[in-house]
């Protein structure tokens, strides 16, 4: 209830400031209704020529820029986008939140959203989201990550899924069937080793071995594919020492021990990990789906879901979710932008046209994905994927000096005997 009262107050404030600023009585009354109760303007917001500020991180810049450009070209409202270096984004949002300087709209790596919602940085969008005709088709893992105490605060902005990329040319050279990507961790292991045996600078696989975020994104789907969890429901306890998790670590350690991995995996801090596959010398590795549109035209690459030890498939539904900051005075105008980005036209003609994953399950098959079956594979994976939920996600899993990276490195580059102890440290950090 406290949140609703606060949102109502913000909406009222927005309404008052609109009346005084523009003398527009109409949008004033819309604002009053839209904030709390979801009135007529709630579904589509207000397009009255307001200037909206928006932040996003560099990792999802092309996707955000395309949406903003198309919106500005067709609306009276204007969105001013600021792109912040990915590594500095959390610090920037934190500092701005402290001084109440957040922009009207800000996107966030979806795993950091719970931290922001629980700190009250986002405005309550529950009624507005529920009023959308396609509300149930929105990527539910993002909606869930942005739900705090039964109120919804964010919508999906860009979806980034972890999927296997495999090099069909190298598969042919290694006498593997290029239409039969791995369906179990064991097959993945065999195929990586077969490609690696080609020699001459060719390697079986690659991963970011000094990058906690990479491990979360590319290793966890193998655990989920087996039906296991990585965290408890509240995100306060780590389950990353399970038998399945250890099987996954062992497979990766085998690749390190036998030199199946391209050089540099041990040092890879995440800045260049997606730059290795496009060089065409790696057989099969997990990659972010957002890089598909950036791959060289002459690279014959196939896409497959990340499998678990005994089959199954899953993916990390990452990317950015976006919300309206609690201090924004233009919530109705900001919602107009958000509602538009989720509509059919933006999702198909902007998002799908750029080979990106649509935010709505009902659009998974569209005229662009129909032309490229790989996109259908990715779009359909959203339903099998997960987005982990934890308030202390960043400091536990993304912090380069955090406990998860220690676990990763002990498990794969070390003896692998410390996993249980390291898992306790991860739990301790989550429960802080």
């Amino acid at each position: 209830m406290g949140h609703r009262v606060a949102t109502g107050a913000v909406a009222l404030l927005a309404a008052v400031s609109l009346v005084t600023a523009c003398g527009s009585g109409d949008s004033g009354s819309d604002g009053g209704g839209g904030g709390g109760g979801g009135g007529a303007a709630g579904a589509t917001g207000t397009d009255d020529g307001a200037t909206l500020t928006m932040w996003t991180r560099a990792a999802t810049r092309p996707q955000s820029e395309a949406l903003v450009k198309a919106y500005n070209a067709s609306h009276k409202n204007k969105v001013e986008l600021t792109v912040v270096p990915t590594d500095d984004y959390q610090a920037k949002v934190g500092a701005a939140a402290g001084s109440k300087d957040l922009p009207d709209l800000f996107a966030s790596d979806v795993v950091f959203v719970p931290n922001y919602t629980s700190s009250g940085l986002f405005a309550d969008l529950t009624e507005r989201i529920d009023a959308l005709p396609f509300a149930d088709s929105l990527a539910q893992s993002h909606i869930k990550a942005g739900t705090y105490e039964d109120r919804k605060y964010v919508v999906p902005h860009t979806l980034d899924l972890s999927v296997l990329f495999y090099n069909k040319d190298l598969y042919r050279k290694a006498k593997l069937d290029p239409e039969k990507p791995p369906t179990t961790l064991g097959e993945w292991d065999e195929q990586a080793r077969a490609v690696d045996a080609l020699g001459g600078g060719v390697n079986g696989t690659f991963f970011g071995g000094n990058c906690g975020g990479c491990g979360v994104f590319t290793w966890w789907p193998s655990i989920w594919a087996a039906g296991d969890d990585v965290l408890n429901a509240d995100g306060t306890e780590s389950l990353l020492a399970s038998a399945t998790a250890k099987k996954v670590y062992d497979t990766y350690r085998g690749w390190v021990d036998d030199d199946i991995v391209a050089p540099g995996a041990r040092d890879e801090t995440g800045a260049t990990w997606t730059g290795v596959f496009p060089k065409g010398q790696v057989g099969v590795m997990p990659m972010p789906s957002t890089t598909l549109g950036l791959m060289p035209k002459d690279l014959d690459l196939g896409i497959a879901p990340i499998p678990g030890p005994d089959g199954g498939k899953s993916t990390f539904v990452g990317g950015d979710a976006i919300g309206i900051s609690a201090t924004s005075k233009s919530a109705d105008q900001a919602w107009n932008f958000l509602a538009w980005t989720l509509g059919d036209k933006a999702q198909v003609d902007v998002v799908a046209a750029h080979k990106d994953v649509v935010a709505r399950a009902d659009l998974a098959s569209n005229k662009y994905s129909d032309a490229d079956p790989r996109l259908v594979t990715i779009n359909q994976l959203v339903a099998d994927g997960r987005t982990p939920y934890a308030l202390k996600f960043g400091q536990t899993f993304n912090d380069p000096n955090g406990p998860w990276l220690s676990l990763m490195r002990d498990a794969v580059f070390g003896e692998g005997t410390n996993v249980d102890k390291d898992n306790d440290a991860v739990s301790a950090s989550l429960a802080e």
Partner: protein
Amino acid sequence: MRSRKAQGLAYAAPTAVFVTVFFLLPLLLVGQMSLSDWPLLAGDRGLNAPENFTDAIDTTLFWPAVRFTLLYTVIVTAVLLGLALLLALLVQESRPAAGFFRTVYFLPSALGLASASLLFWGLYSPTTGPLSRILENLGLVDDPVSFLGTPTSALLSTVFLIVWKFAGFYMLILLVGLQRIPHEVFEAARMDGASRGQIFRSITLPLLRPSLALTLLLCVTGSLLAFDQFFVLTKGGPDNSTVTVVQLIYREAFQRMNLGTAAALSVLVLAVLLLLNALQFRGLRRADES
């Protein structure tokens, strides 16, 4: 008389305002933060002293970071000042080309530290950098070199960057000091038959003491506050082996989003630096008197 006083105040006022706004007030704020429960996202939640200080020291990385920062400071200071002195001696006399070499040695100092770190990060990178490939092609190594891959190599690679970047700057300070020594002293020593080594030990070094003390002060302070180079090159890795104290402050504030403990750490660092500087200034003053 009064107008002179007013004039003086007017002259001092801009600096006083500047120091108050940009130094004293932030310092007081840090003091308050260090005594308060102050999450980055939620803001001030009231006093909790001395919890932030005990929390900061209890962090698993605190003592390793202190040890590493001291080790790094000792290594960098020794290598950097030794090399700077050598360079200064090499280019002190007005030989042909001395000006050219002075400029070349000084050139890296014109670069920002973050940009220089990024440059070296690119050079060192095993996936995209050229250094490892060059060494391989020359046949000096068989496998790709991992410049930042082990604790020792990460430390040495960073020290190399810092020495490359700052040796010219300290050379310049020492060069000024060298040229302040009157020529007659050297001549007299030579007339008395002193060897080069004797001249260096008994004349150059003692008369250079003020400059050496100054470079020592700058170098130790700078190294204890090391951040940019490790933030860009290693992010404290591999395996937390290169976490400096200032990185710990950054981590508390922006990874763990706890301004209170970050401020407490800052206050501790400030106290240590004040103490060290006081000691070194005393040394400096004594050097000036002698």
